[in-house]
């Protein structure tokens, strides 16, 4: 593909330098999301990984404007929706949806399953009551529930079934882009696979794009086309899932992937784990330099003073000085790749 053709294909969602600070006590601010940029194409899944509190969920919610962004731009299908109010957002609400983490909290306990699935269509004034009922029937079966479940209440269902109800509610709007905010972390392992398979099937059939937030690396690798790794509100590495998972570049990604458990005990014994020292800094008072500099075994003085830009290296984006063009050149002059030069020293 030549460059011209590339620019003509607009990504479905483009996030530029997105920032979200929450006010905290004492005039301080929680830096939940601190300048994150990425794009999602049609029919593609972007997996976001990172430990608890790294701003994954806040980012997902800010993109859907549950929180007003502090800075940056959100561009959906060529339209900048960053400053849209409730009324102007309405057509986009239909196209951008969310699946929630806690299937016990995300369904109104006083609504029947039928009411829950019908509600989005009532809000967007879609169809007559009769047509809506037919769609509800249809959706119930699409997500693998029984027609007689319509008159039941959420508390009568298991976690996996409730998550299906939540998915059916989302599908009622026929969205194009869905933020999945840890949709499986509250479910049993056996049920996780069912829900994931359902999400994948829907993507194949309807061409959804997902922003899939999770902390289970294996699962994200399995479902995603691209992976973004977040640390303390920053996107430290972003690339295709094979690249990121099989050949992590950023020191944090390397530590994260080495910490993932392996099913085979023999392999697990041989596997070298990178044990990180220290703790995640408080997002109330992030370090001035690279957010990871305090725990990074390869950190230099420069890392602690100035935050690295995001560098393009080997087809992906990495926010680490190791991959700064001048350093890469220096390493290659010595006949090594940056990884060999730094990690295998």
């Amino acid at each position, binding site marked *: 593909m030549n460059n011209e053709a590339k620019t003509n294909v607009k990504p479905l969602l483009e996030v530029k330098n997105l920032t979200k600070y929450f006010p905290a006590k004492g005039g301080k601010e929680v830096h939940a999301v601190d300048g994150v940029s990425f794009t999602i194409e049609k029919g593609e899944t972007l997996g976001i990984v990172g430990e608890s509190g790294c701003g994954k969920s806040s980012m997902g919610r800010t993109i859907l404007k*549950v929180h007003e962004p502090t800075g940056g731009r959100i561009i959906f299908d060529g339209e900048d929706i960053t400053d849209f109010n409730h009324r102007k957002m309405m057509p986009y609400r239909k196209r951008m949806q969310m699946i929630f983490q806690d299937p016990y909290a995300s369904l109104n306990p006083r609504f029947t399953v039928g009411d829950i699935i019908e509600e989005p269509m009532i809000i967007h004034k879609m169809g007559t009551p009769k047509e809506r009922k037919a769609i509800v029937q249809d959706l119930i079966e699409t997500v693998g529930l029984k027609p007689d479940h319509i008159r039941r209440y959420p508390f009568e269902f298991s976690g996996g079934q409730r998550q299906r109800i939540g998915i059916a509610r989302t599908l009622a709007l026929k969205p194009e882009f869905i933020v999945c905010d840890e949709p499986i972390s509250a479910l049993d392992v056996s049920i996780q696979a069912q829900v994931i398979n359902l999400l994948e099937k829907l993507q194949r059939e309807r061409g959804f794009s997902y922003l899939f937030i999770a902390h289970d690396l294996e699962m994200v690798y399995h479902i995603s086309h691209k992976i973004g790794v977040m640390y303390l509100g920053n996107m430290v590495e972003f690339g295709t899932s094979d690249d990121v998972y099989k050949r992590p570049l950023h020191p944090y990604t390397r530590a994260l992937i080495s910490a993932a458990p392996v099913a085979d005990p023999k392999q697990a014994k041989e596997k070298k784990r990178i044990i990180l020292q220290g703790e995640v800094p408080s997002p109330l008072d992030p370090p001035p330099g690279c957010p990871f500099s305090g725990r990074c075994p390869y950190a230099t003085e420069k890392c602690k003073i100035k935050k690295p830009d995001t560098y393009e290296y080997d087809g992906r984006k990495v926010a680490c000085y190791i991959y700064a063009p001048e350093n890469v050149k220096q390493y290659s002059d010595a006949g090594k790749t940056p990884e060999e030069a730094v990690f295998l020293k």
Partner: protein
Amino acid sequence: MTEEALFRKLEAEEKNDEFIAVESQTFLQAAWKNFKSNKRALVGGIVLIVIVLLAIFGPMVAPYSYDEQNMALRNASPSADHWFGTDKMGRDIFVRILYGARISLLVGLVAAVVNLIIGTLYGGIAGYAGGKVDMVMMRIVDIIYSIPSMLYIVLIMLMFGASVGSIVLGISISCWIDMARIVRQEVKSLKEQEFTMAAFVLGASSKRILVKHLLLNAMGQIIVTVTLMVPQAIFTEAWLSFLGVGISAPQASWGTLAQDARSLIQVYPMQTVYPMLAICITIFAFNFVGEGLEKALDPKRKR
């Protein structure tokens, strides 16, 4: 035994035989079942229904009106003609108590409506909006709360005269405060739940989120609070009338009846006891029902 005898393949229609699930009940069905099993609440409910029926239909069929005097028959003892006897003006006490029930229940009804509409919406809006709006709204509530209700009730009485309307207005001004605070608290915690965020992401308007998602879920708490606020209002009216700032003679409220009989308490103590009993029974009945509802509507019982 052979393996075949032990295990056999299920027929298609047998596969669902072991489908285990609780009987599907709506929220209200479950609450009603729960309420019925609570004897005290049930008795309270029946007593309330009897009181309401007596208050509505009693005066219609009674042979006397509330201010009909019979000077020949003053301070009479209970008899077939006068079930609770007569007072110092020869008026039938039973009929007067029935009229008093009308006033008390009217006060209670108005208090309930004010609580449900003003208290619920005020608290709901304050809790949902949060921030500065919440702050200002709750400070207004604090101000209303800090002025003794006696003060504006007396002022209203002076302006509009001592009538049922004035006392109802006076009680309405402040009776919704507790409700507003309770609803605000409830809405604030419900607002943090994911289903509220889900509704927002779906594009629901603030009004829809507040009414369909927040207040609907706070309904149990709201109903319980109403049943506990009503007896409070009834008691306030009786107490004000007893002190002479409420409804005045010849109109009969339970408070004025007790006040009228007070001067004769040493000679005819029963004349004071009847209205007091009426107040007690009504308030107990409301409280029992409120308690029963609180247990029946508690969402934690079901999950």
